[in-house]
């Protein structure tokens, strides 16, 4: 299938619109319709990017939550289990669209593109540099944490001898030491390559809004508009 790659700014707008729609509660079938529609768009986009497994998983989960909520949990259902289920399904049905959109955006956006989009939106360099470091550090923390867990297993201290404080301490302390020292070396390597120069940073990505972007933005604007209209104005 043809790959539709959207501008990061379009993707941010998608998140914005979806976050808005999920925060207002849907009651009527029409409102639910809009919600489901805005959920389907990122799922479709995921399919065009070839991420079939996740698209399938997300749709299944979302559909299950909707069906459970609609048909199996009624006013008669009482007791702990159903309270539990309503709580879950409610949250899944409510916030899943935002999660799906976020997942799509995070998985399909290169950090470089994202940085470039931030530059275009006039976000100060300081913030975009820090944000790039955050993105770089998530996988680093995962790696370091993995080795720390291995080391804990070898010494049989994974559960801190049953003390929660020790459990946290043994995980946190080596992790912090590692991150601080990686950070020192990273800073040195970055400043020798000109980070911090008093010029506007540039980017090899030249972002342009294409037809797909304009259509996506239009669709989401219309959905959001409709949603507000039926909810508040009518």
């Amino acid at each position, binding site marked *: 299938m043809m790959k539709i790659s959207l501008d990061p700014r379009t993707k941010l707008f998608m998140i914005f619109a979806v976050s808005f729609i999920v925060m*207002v509660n849907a009651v009527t079938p029409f409102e639910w319709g809009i919600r489901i529609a805005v959920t389907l768009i990122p799922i479709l986009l995921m399919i065009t990017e070839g991420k079939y497994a996740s698209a399938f998983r997300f749709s299944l989960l979302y559909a299950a939550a909707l069906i459970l909520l609609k048909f199996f949990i*009624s006013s008669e259902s009482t007791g702990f289990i159903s309270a539990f289920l309503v709580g879950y399904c409610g949250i899944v049905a409510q916030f899943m669209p*935002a999660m*799906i959109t976020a997942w799509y955006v995070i998985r399909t956006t290169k950090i470089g593109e994202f940085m470039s989009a931030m530059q275009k939106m006039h976000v100060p360099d300081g913030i975009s540099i*820090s944000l790039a470091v*955050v993105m770089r550090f998530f996988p680093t*923390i995962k790696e370091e944490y993995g080795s720390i867990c291995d080391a804990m297993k070898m010494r049989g201290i994974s559960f801190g001898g049953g003390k929660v404080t020790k459990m946290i301490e043994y995980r946190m302390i080596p992790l912090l*030491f590692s991150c601080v020292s990686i950070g020192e070396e990273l800073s040195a390597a970055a400043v020798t390559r000109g980070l*911090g120069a008093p010029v506007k940073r540039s980017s090899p990505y030249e972002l342009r809004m294409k037809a797909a972007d304009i259509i996506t933005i239009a669709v989401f604007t219309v959905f959001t508009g409709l949603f507000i209209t039926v909810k508040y104005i009518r």
Partner: protein
Amino acid sequence: MNDNKLKAKDFITVGIFTALLFVVEFACGMLGFIHPYIVASYVVMIPLVGSIPMMLFYTKIEKFGMITIMSVLLAIIMFVTGMGWLGAPLIIAAGVIADLIAKKSNYKSMKAIALSHGVFCLWVCANYFPVIVTSESYRKSLIDGGYSMEYCDNLFRAINSKTIIFLLILCFVFGVIGAYVGKSVVKKHFEKAGIV
């Protein structure tokens, strides 16, 4: 040379500690999946656990802006990960105020740092904003849909627009307590090892 301006190294430091703090938030968030009620206990867990990286972060602050940037980053990450943007003003306001408080003592006095950390921790409450906003209308629609009043009250007892004040206060209190806990950990490990 303007020494009050943040340098590349400072931005990197902010990035690292934001990542660490977010990982703490994420780990606690995972516990929230066990049951929604646990979500309410974020106000205790995140300030206490997060205080360890935060207190180490405070030792590295010399200039104004680092805490503010951290709060902006948290707001951006929360937005991008689909946790909504309603909390953003709270997060950033907490960050700026926390930064100002700590700046007064030049990021040195423990009292100011504790206070500053307490204020900063209010960002945790931004996690609840989408739930609060939705819960009111959600509850109404559930009642309209025929659910019992009691049931709905149960569902949203822990988090609603009344308890949020209480949660904010808890956040602040545990933020201040956390600052001292975190400081003692920093003393025990990082100062002893000569890292800070």
